[in-house]
Each structure stands twice: as C-alpha cells, then as structure tokens.
C-alpha cells in the first residue's frame, strides 16, 4: 500500500469511526442491535447540506444534524418501548421511513455542497495541502468524541446505561427507568452517526440518499475487528478499539479493492459482500483459534 492510500484509509477510518462509536453504543453498551443508522447517516448528511446551503454556518449545521439523528434514534426506541415492537424491526421501520424523509429534506435524492462553505475551509487556513491535513483533523475529531464517550460511560448515567444493556432487571430494581435510558442511548448513538454523515457530506462535497447503505455492517465490522485485535476489557479500551477497528476495516477494504487477478478485480459495488465476509471472519476467528488451541 502506498502512503497516500494509507493516509486515505486513516482519514476514512477516523471519519467513519464516529459512526462506529455510535454503533458500539447500541450494539455493545445497550445490547440493542439498531439498523436505524443506515438512515440516520444520510439524514445527518442531508440536514447539514440543506442547512449549509441555506446559509447556516457549518458548525451549527453539524449540531442540527446531530439533533436530527438523536430524534431518529428516539423514534426507534419509542417504537420499541412504547408500542412493543421488536427492537430490530423498530429500527428497520425507522430506517425505511428515513429514506423518504431524507428525500423530502433535500427536495431530491441528493444535494451538492459545491461552492458552499464547509468546516474544511478552516483547515485550509493552516496553509498545508488539504489531503495532508484532513486525515489528522479527522483523527483529532474522532479522538475527542471517543474521550467524550469514555467520560460519559463513567458517569452515574453512563454506568446505568452499561448496566441497562447487561442486566436491565437489576438496574430497574435499583431505580433506573430503563426505557428512558434506552431512548437516550439509541438517540445518542444515532446523533453520532448523523454527525458522521454531516462530516462525510462536507468531505465529499455532497449528500446522497443512498450513502447510508451498508452503514450498520461497516460499523459492526469496525466494532468486531477492533475487539478481536485490541480487546474490550474496559470501556476506554473498547472505545479506542472501535476506532482502530474502523481504520483496519478501511485498510482491509483498500487492500481488497487493489486485488487484481488477471483481468478480474473487485469493484466498489462488491464492498458490501467483502464487508459481510470480513464480519463473519472477525466474529468467528476467536472461536476458530480457540478450537485450534484446545
């Protein structure tokens, strides 16, 4: 792999690491597999794109995107806790609904940000070429968010959230309204995913209603790869593992795409297949190695 390709993988890995941290909250902390993210990533992108093109500054636009993501997650949680719909199905319903909502927001299937101000403009003022600065800016962003998440999970509320995913009956008996915690957790998760979408839209210069396809699989791949390679003994280790997993995932994708066997090679549309295989491998590799060693 070339340095440029590695830098690109670092950039993508850190950028989508924000989303993967969101997936970590639902999948690992709350034990609530949530497919809403396939809709909330483009939701964040759409909200940010529309906000920026109507003159709102990029940072406020990202806050709006996060708020929209929170509401999407809250929707899924309420479908589950208030209406008793199975969690996974509730999240699929929200995801499907978001497809229509996103097109409404953008007034079409996509929205360009060409010629609009983005937060990347502020990076340009550093005087270095953007392709060199962006990866480190993304790394700084995802690290700040990870530190925030680690801090949160160590607070009283964060501890209650961890316990809600682990033993809801016990934490309810200790006075925690687990329905409310689930709402906050799934909301927070989707806020991060939507924030990620808002950053992606500015980074690639457009928002597109299909950009969320496969988000959950990429997020799971990152979480599981990270756990397999780094481990998840403590909350801070698990959060750092998610980011490293996300970077490794992007490297694996880049490597897969660079495979050429004669005239045959993988195309970007094969990525979801590659990702699915990667998740299966990462999920079963601990078992495989255990079987071999026993």
């Amino acid at each position, binding site marked *: 792999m070339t340095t440029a390709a590695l830098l690109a993988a670092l950039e993508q890995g850190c950028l989508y690491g924000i989303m993967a941290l969101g997936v970590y909250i639902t999948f690992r902390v709350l034990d609530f597999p949530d497919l809403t993210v396939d809709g909330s990533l483009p939701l964040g992108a759409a909200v940010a794109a529309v906000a920026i093109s109507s003159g709102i500054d990029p940072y406020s636009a990202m806050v709006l995107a996060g708020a929209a993501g929170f509401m999407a997650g809250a929707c899924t949680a309420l479908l589950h806790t208030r209406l008793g719909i199975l969690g996974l199905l509730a999240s699929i319903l929200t995801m499907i609904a978001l497809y229509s909502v996103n097109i409404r927001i953008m007034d079409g299937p996509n929205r360009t940000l060409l010629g609009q101000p983005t937060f990347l403009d502020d990076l340009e003022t550093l005087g270095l070429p953007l392709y060199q600065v962006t990866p480190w800016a993304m790394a700084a962003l995802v690290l700040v968010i990870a530190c925030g998440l680690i801090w949160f999970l160590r*607070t009283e*509320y964060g501890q209650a959230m961890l316990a809600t995913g*682990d033993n809801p009956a016990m934490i309810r008996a*200790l*006075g*925690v309204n687990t329905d409310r915690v689930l709402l906050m957790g799934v909301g927070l998760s989707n806020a991060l995913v939507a924030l990620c979408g808002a950053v992606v839209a500015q980074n690639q210069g457009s928002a597109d209603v299909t950009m969320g396809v496969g988000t959950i699989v990429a997020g799971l791949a990152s979480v599981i790869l990270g756990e397999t390679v780094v481990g998840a003994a403590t909350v801070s280790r698990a959060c750092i593992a998610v980011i490293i997993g996300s970077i490794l995932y992007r490297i694996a994708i880049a490597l897969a795409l660079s495979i050429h066997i004669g005239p045959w090679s993988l195309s970007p549309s094969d990525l979801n297949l590659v990702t699915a295989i990667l998740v299966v491998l990462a999920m079963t590799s601990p078992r495989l190695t255990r079987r071999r060693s026993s």
Partner: protein
Amino acid sequence: MISIRGIQKWFHRGTPQEVHALRGVDLEVAPGDFITIIGSNGAGKSTMLSCIAGALSIDAGSIHFHDTDVTSWPEYRRAGLVARVFQDPLRGTFGGGTIAQNLALALRRGAPRGLRPGVRRHELAFFQERLATLGLGLEHRLHDRVALLSGGQRQALTMVMATLRRPELLLLDEHTAALDPKTAAHILELTERTVAEHGITTLMVTHNMAHAIALGNRLVMMHHGRIVLETRGAEKAALTVTALLDRFHDLNAASDRMILS
C-alpha cells in the same frame, strides 16, 4: 407500616392458560418485622414479592408504604423503598461491571443519576468496609469484574448491595436455594446479621422449613394464591418442622379432594 390489601393477580387472564396466581392476599408488615414465607411450588410467593416490588402490576388491591399509596408506581420508582435479592446470583449484579461499579450503582438506589462520576474515590473506603464484613476477601478485589466471581460471592455481593442504602423493605426470594450448603449457610448467617444490625423490615421466601422457623419474628404459609397460616412470637417459636409438614399435607390433600370432586 407496609399494608398489602386484597391483592389479586392473574396471568394470561381471559385465555385458556389463565392462572389466578394471587387470590386476595392481605398482609400488614410492621417496621422491623422479619417475616419468613413458605408454601408449595406455585403457591404465589414469588409473584407476591414481584407485586410488592412493582415488577408486576396487580389486578386488584392496594399496596401502601406508611401513608403513601404505591400501587400504581412502576418498579423503578419503588426502588427507593424496596431492595430485592433473587435465587439466581446472576440476577442481582451487573457482570460486566467491577465490584466497585456495582456497589456504586446500588448506593444510588432510588436516587436520580446524573453526570457526576459513577464511582467516587471517597466511596471506596466505605465499600471496602462493608465488603470486609463478608469475610470473603472481596474488599481487595474492588476493581475485578463481577463476572469473575463465583455464584456464592456474587450472592454475598448482592446482599451487601441490597442493604448498602437501608431499604424500607427487603425482599429475599429463596436467595440461598441455588448455593451449595456451606455457602448457603454463610449467606443466611449474613442475612440474619445484616437485618438485625440495621433493623431492616424483611420478607424472606424459603423452602427450608427449619430456616423459616429459626429466622424472623413472623411466619406466613401460602397456598394456591392465599395466605393460609400466620404465626408470630412464641407461637412461631414453638413450631416444629413436622407440624408444618403436616399442615402442608392437609392442604394438599384438601386441594386434591377439591380437584377430584
């Protein structure tokens, strides 16, 4: 004073699987009472405790703590009043968390949870002091994950968690039944000691008649969703296991006759 009046509870009401689990249970619990509860399987003992804790809603009757009607309070709202220990040691603790994290969660039972640190440094000494009374060495393992502990250690920890913040009412549901005899004896001794030390009002379900007679100041026997026997004081102290078993057999014979006729 905790007043339980006329509680009725159905499961799957109006379906072919309908179970009338509680058929009008009345119980007045005075402060400091330690009531042991016995009864055959399916008598409704666990259901009654779940109704008192609010984990199950009741179909008729009322539950008052002092003068507060808590009948419609959800479980998490009653948590400030009630602490509970189950038969299964895994149910009372959060395995992914450390001993200190579990105790900190229990210390805030019934209190709102905010963005302050989940475990505070100055609390650790208090946790160690309470754990030391167990004599299991857990006070040196504050930062170990609870999932690493044995069932007996977890149940001992659950007992500490239940009483870390003194509850108005402690509910114990066969909390020694899943443990080996030696550990069970230890947990039982711990129960007696903690309840006496802090003067905690307690309801303890047990299938061990000898324990039911030896512990507490009152004894209640349940059968088919009703309280069928209540003794206290000297009358309770004079009970024997044989007398209780005879009582059981009479009840079962009576209900068998009912079914046959």
